[in-house]
């Protein structure tokens, strides 16, 4: 549970923002909180609220949500590896808690990620942070001061940096793969138009698949033994 605290902390400002936005775009408090409680997928929820605001239909929103979340397929597959021997009902529960952030924390801890209690604890803490934050957001009539809100936008990215950088220090190969991914991700943001107009979720999927394929092709075995 403790390991999940930084995630819950990182989620709070975003969840509060979600609660505020969802209400501002016509969802009731109940619907906003229910969405966080049942969907538990930040990016998709923001996208859905945005689409609702521009009058998109139900089917359109669902397809977009699926696209944005297909990346979890890869993450779940990666976690299925250490959790392979656990009973299905436990894996069914753990699967619900997989997000970019819980996955990152869990995947970066190879000594503990075969322990279902550890994984479920991280997921639960993050989940509570997400639902609690959403609830607070729907209750806030006036938002936080605009400037503090803007500064909080960095919170989740700072957390990603804090997770990624120490593990990159220990493995040149992982560092190379991360560098390739950042390069590709920049290319999909600033490169040719057919890429930049792609959905955010697709960009991430394409970037990840290419970077990991290159990594597996060029570094079939770990060069340095010190990698975790």
């Amino acid at each position, binding site marked *: 549970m403790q390991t999940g605290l930084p995630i819950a902390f990182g989620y709070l400002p975003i969840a509060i923002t979600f609660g505020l936005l969802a209400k501002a775009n016509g969802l009731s408090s109940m619907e906003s909180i229910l*969405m966080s409680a049942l969907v538990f997928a930040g990016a998709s929820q923001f996208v859905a609220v945005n689409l609702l605001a521009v009058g998109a239909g*139900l089917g359109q929103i669902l397809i977009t949500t699926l696209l944005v979340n297909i990346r979890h397929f890869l993450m779940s597959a990666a976690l299925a590896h250490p959790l*392979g021997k656990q009973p299905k009902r436990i894996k069914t529960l753990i699967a619900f808690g997989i997000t970019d952030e819980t996955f990152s924390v869990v*995947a970066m801890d190879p000594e503990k990620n075969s322990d279902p209690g550890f994984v479920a604890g991280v997921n639960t803490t993050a989940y509570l942070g997400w639902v609690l934050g959403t609830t607070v957001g729907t209750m806030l009539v006036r938002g936080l001061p605009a400037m503090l809100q803007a500064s909080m*936008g960095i919170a*989740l990215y700072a957390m990603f*940096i*804090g997770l990624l950088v120490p593990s990159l220090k220990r493995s040149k190969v992982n560092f190379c793969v991360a560098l390739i991914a950042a390069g590709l991700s920049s290319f999909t943001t600033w490169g040719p138009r057919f890429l930049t107009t792609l959905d955010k979720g697709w960009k991430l999927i394409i970037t990840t698949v290419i970077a990991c394929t290159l990594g597996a092709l060029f570094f079939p075995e770990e060069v340095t033994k010190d990698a975790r």
Partner: protein
Amino acid sequence: MQDNQGILLIMGMAVVTYLPRLIPMLLFNPEKLPPFVKRFFGFIPYAVLSALIFPEILASTSSPASALVGGVVALVLAVYEKNLFLVVVGGIVGVFLCELML
């Protein structure tokens, strides 16, 4: 939006977000995966995190400059392997101070 449509949307989203998380967890027998695929999966966290961070971090605050400052503060703290909380708080403080000065 109408009451039942809101619930329908939420239920639908719950299903389409849960399935991609559930299916690999239940169906994969990781021991049978070829080494290339295992290697591929092993790289996923680094690639995903890196791609999530850059360049989107630059749009996470009201100006790319303050985001850059916050990001660099977080990066320095992370290189010295400071506590995750400290990295996050350092990033926020960096952005806040930078925005004060802008």
